């Protein structure tokens, strides 16, 4: 009923939309560059290479988890459990490594490999549960992932009783966790690889095409022969997998398994995705922009640290940023006649 047929309104609207798309794409890089320049001018410590690498590293963690969140948002869902998945993965990895290392003290590499697999599996399981429940029960993804959030972090806390797990092999914490190549931490390369792969998936594969199609109009996808339930499960699993990967990289970095890891990541992942232009109504979103969104958040956080804004105040800033970003998105799409 609300589809436009009036060519007059439509021609104007199309033009306006094209403009806003260019603006939407152009605004974030411009904002980033401005922020970068301003910070460089007012705070010389900002431009030190150690600081820049630090920003990139923090942004990498966020990019990974936010791109997972993006997949779920594009398909028209939501994942509140990503932070808890990070915690669960961290604990599962650490516990299985410390357990295995006493059994196979010689084969450290083997232990590391098994531990990483265990962590990834544990984290991805949550995604499978999320996906199955959302796809087959057709319940609000929000409630489901709120529930699994509690379950995952409960398991992580219960397994460790809230105490950090130490004693993972040095191969993992020292050599992998602090590994650098060309002076850049390995996490940056991993993230870059994952982002490129995701970009390819979203643009050049059937899976990506269907994620967009389902989020855009699930009914249309279904009658066109797309198995929506299957792809929903795959998408939630991918999201949790990426969160689990983040959890493993974070665990390697801090050197212990922590049930409290990833507390703010849920909020930040949604923030990064939304700043990157992902629509909460599904169907719209691009990996490269989400990466920029994550970089933006990392820059803002770094700036606040440099000028010594209390870390507690920072959650306020992130809260405001989320609301404003979604508000702008809302405002932009208001002109759309759909």
């Amino acid at each position, binding site marked *: 009923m609300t589809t436009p047929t009036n060519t007059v309104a439509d021609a104007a609207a199309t033009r306006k939309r094209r403009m806003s798309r260019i603006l939407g794409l152009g605004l974030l890089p411009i904002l980033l560059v401005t922020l970068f320049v301003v910070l460089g001018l007012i705070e010389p410590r900002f431009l030190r290479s150690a600081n820049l690498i630090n920003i990139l590293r923090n942004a990498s963690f966020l990019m990974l988890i936010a791109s997972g969140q993006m997949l779920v948002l594009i398909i028209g869902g939501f994942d509140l459990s990503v932070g808890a998945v990070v915690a669960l993965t961290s604990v599962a990895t650490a516990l299985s490594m410390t357990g295995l290392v006493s059994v196979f003290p010689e084969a450290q590499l083997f232990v590391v490999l098994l531990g990483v697999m265990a962590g990834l599996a544990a984290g991805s399981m949550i995604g499978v549960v999320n996906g199955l429940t959302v796809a087959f029960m057709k319940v609000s993804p929000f409630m489901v992932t709120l*529930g699994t959030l509690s*379950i995952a972090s409960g398991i992580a806390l219960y397994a460790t*009783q809230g105490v950090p797990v130490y004693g993972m092999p040095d191969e993992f914490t020292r050599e992998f966790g602090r590994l650098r190549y060309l002076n850049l931490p390995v996490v940056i390369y991993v993230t870059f690889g994952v982002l490129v792969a995701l970009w390819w998936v979203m643009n050049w594969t059937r899976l990506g095409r269907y994620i967009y199609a389902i989020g855009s109009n699930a009914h249309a996808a279904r009658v066109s022969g797309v198995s929506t339930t299957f792809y929903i499960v795959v998408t939630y699993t991918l999201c949790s997998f990426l969160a689990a990967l983040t959890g493993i990289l974070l665990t390697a970095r801090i050197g212990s398994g922590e049930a409290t890891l990833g507390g703010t990541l849920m909020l930040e992942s949604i923030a990064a995705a939304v700043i990157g232009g992902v629509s909460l109504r599904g169907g719209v979103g691009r990996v490269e922009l989400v990466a920029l969104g994550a970089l933006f958040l990392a820059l803002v956080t770094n700036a606040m640290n440099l000028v010594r804004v*209390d870390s507690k105040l920072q959650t306020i800033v992130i809260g*405001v940023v989320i*609301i404003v970003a979604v*508000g702008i998105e809302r405002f932009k799409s208001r002109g759309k006649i759909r």
Partner: protein
Amino acid sequence: MSASVDGPDLSASRSHVWFFGFFAKYGFLPVILIALYVGFGLVEPAFFSGANALNIIKQSSYLIVLATAQMFVLLTRGFDLSLGMVVSMVSVASSLVMAGIAPNGEGPVIIALLAGVFAAVAIGAMAGAVNGICVAYFDINPFVVTMGMQGIAFGLATTLSGGFPVLDIPVLLNKGLAQGAWFGVIPPPVAVCLIILAASYFVLNRTVFGRSLYLLGANSRATEVGGIPWRRYNMLAYVICSSIAAIGAILITARAGTGEPSLGGGLVLQSIAAAVIGGVALRGGEGRVIHVVLGGLLVTVLSIGMNLTRVDGFLQEIVLGLVVVGAVFLDRLRLKIRL
């Protein structure tokens, strides 16, 4: 969507109607509630004691207050994720006000208490107004708005308190609002809870505002076409939600005897769980005061039962998560039975 299936006309046999009608109205909840009570009692006989029964009622009143708050926004097809952190923020802020006027109970204690309560409700209402304006007038997803507010309120709570409990609040708060009994029989939190329930019942069932909440939750565009100022009412729902949560915060602060920045951690989940388990629909437009009471009782019985049977605290969090997912299943099931 399909015009041909515009409306099924139900005419099943009488007994079925009664049977399903009962579940459609109250869910399986009363049955589960009794089963849980008896079950815990069999495992741990102390559960059956009168003192424990009183404790259940007393403890559940806190949750019921918060779940009632949550219900006001759930009815509008919304959500309030910030509820827990608003409780923390209000707890800290009102404690600071009280401690400022009458540190350690030295000074005008009554004025301090009144000012504290006033500040609590005012701050709560303000947070609610921000949520409500963003949701109702700017059409921003309630979930994102309240999630942002959660961050903001958490930041304010920890900043205001520096991360530590506010200790020097008047003891009278604890004595008057948590301990003992009003009129010799009724524990203060239960009394406050009953007042809130009665007021909510009246507002929801006897006022144009309450009616409009149901109507707009069921179909906001229909209320717009019907000339109801739904945006205003939608915003007010968030204000009321946060205001009731603020009263809950005062009660909880009184119970703890200190203003705590970490008070509200698990409360969002619990309040939503209680309301939804009780039978408040996630898709809006459905939910009654009795639902919240039943849901609040259930979650409390579960938690006290697990404490008495010495279930690990972290394990309880897992159980709560399962209960939330279970509640969503039940919500779907109710819908299926009805249609």
